[in-house]
């Protein structure tokens, strides 16, 4: 029995529509969580790189050099195999024999987050460096504490300056989640591999995966650029 394209990617009994949509939501969830983790690491990384202490600066540079210079797939393998080896050791020591592996989603988010954190570090750092130094001095001379200065002066402006670069990082995070198919996470690509294998229609299903990645990227991209324009309002006259 041969099915038409619409039956194959539709929502009927032989259609892959629902599994693919579910997988797309997992892709989106992994990308959003990875990006959020990366933001946290990026802020810490930027603080390290801008610090007065030479050791902290070196630590920040080490982080960004290593995680931007090594292929992402290797880092995914590191966390996948390294994580399960460490977890198995812990479990064996606490009296549970056998082999244990960690959930692919958590591993994937960790790997994607750490890599994107290295790129976000540069975005936040550049955003901070574009700040008008005079404003920080003005804040200090008004008697603002460090935290108040950060909240009122630094964060709102540095974030707005960093936003275009962060948008680029988001796009690459979204595409990087495709690598998580190799550790068995049922995201878009993994689901398409399954579908392509069982229907023998690789062209169709990888095409659909590509299209869905493209659409998610486009939609989130336009959302980001709208936010960018709105946040830019105080600077445009």
């Amino acid at each position: 029995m041969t099915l038409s394209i619409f039956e194959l990617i539709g929502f009927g009994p032989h259609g892959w529509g629902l599994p693919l949509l579910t997988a797309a939501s997992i892709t989106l969830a992994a990308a959003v969580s990875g990006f959020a983790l990366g933001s946290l690491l990026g802020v810490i990384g930027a603080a390290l790189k801008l610090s007065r202490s030479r050791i902290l600066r070196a630590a920040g540079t080490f982080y960004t050099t290593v995680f931007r210079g090594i292929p992402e797939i290797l880092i995914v393998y590191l966390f996948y195999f390294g994580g399960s080896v460490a977890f198995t050791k812990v479990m064996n020591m606490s009296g549970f024999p056998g082999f244990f592996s960690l959930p692919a989603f958590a591993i994937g988010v960790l790997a994607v987050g750490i890599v994107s954190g290295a790129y976000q570090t540069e975005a936040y750092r550049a955003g901070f460096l574009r700040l008008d130094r005079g404003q920080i001095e003005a804040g200090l001379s008004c008697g603002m504490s460090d935290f108040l200065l950060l909240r009122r002066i630094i964060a709102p402006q540095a974030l707005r300056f960093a936003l275009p670069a962060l948008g680029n990082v988001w796009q690459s995070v979204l595409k990087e989640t495709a690598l998580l198919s190799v550790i068995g996470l049922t995201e878009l690509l993994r689901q398409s591999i399954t579908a392509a294998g069982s229907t023998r229609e690789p062209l169709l299903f990888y095409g659909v995966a590509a299209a869905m990645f493209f659409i998610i990227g486009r939609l989130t991209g336009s959302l980001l650029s709208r936010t960018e324009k709105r946040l830019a309002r105080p600077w445009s006259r």
Partner: protein
Amino acid sequence: MMDWNFLTDVFQQLLTGLPLTLQLSAMALAVGFALSILVAAAAGSSFRLFRWIGNAHIELFRGTPLLVQIFLIYYGLGQIPGLRQSFLWPFLREPYWCAVLALALNTSAYTAEIIRGALQAVPLGEIEAGRSCGMSGLLLRRRVVWPIAVRQGLAVYGSEVILMLKATSLASIITLTEVTGIAYKLISSSYRVMEVFAVTGALYLTLTFLISLAFSVIESRLNKHLAYRRN
């Protein structure tokens, strides 16, 4: 305790994959660069159809994951009926050529965007100055536009070269045993994850360092005439 014997053994095994990694990067970059000139020319053309094709190429290859592109080419192309009978099939059947094709198409889109940005960054005043000296067409491009654009785009292209080197690691997923493919085999057979990762990471970091060093040397050579501005 570090097991130096194991580390040197890993290093030696990884080195056997290095030629393939370098070859894939060089082939993809060479083919991709040639293609990117066409794409950039199409995207900047005054014919609407060419412009549309060029922009679609850039958007599609930049907007989808490289791994999906590799899968589409490696597993998908065989489904096209005419292709299996054509003279291209002996190439497209091989994972090596599929990887080169996917990487080249991918980098051509990014490079076309770099070329576009570099050309846009040429100051209008310089072009006007050239025109007022009576230069036009190819002469203007050869003497004014291209030399300035190359200097503008060089640093960004350097990071694209590094991205391509890293991207060749995805070829391991379609069975090519380049550096990452070997690292994967070593990890899954020995389960000494940290050690293998450290050696492989150091190898890639050395390569990326050498690439960025090469580009900064070229850049300072090209910008010799600006050297006095630094002091």
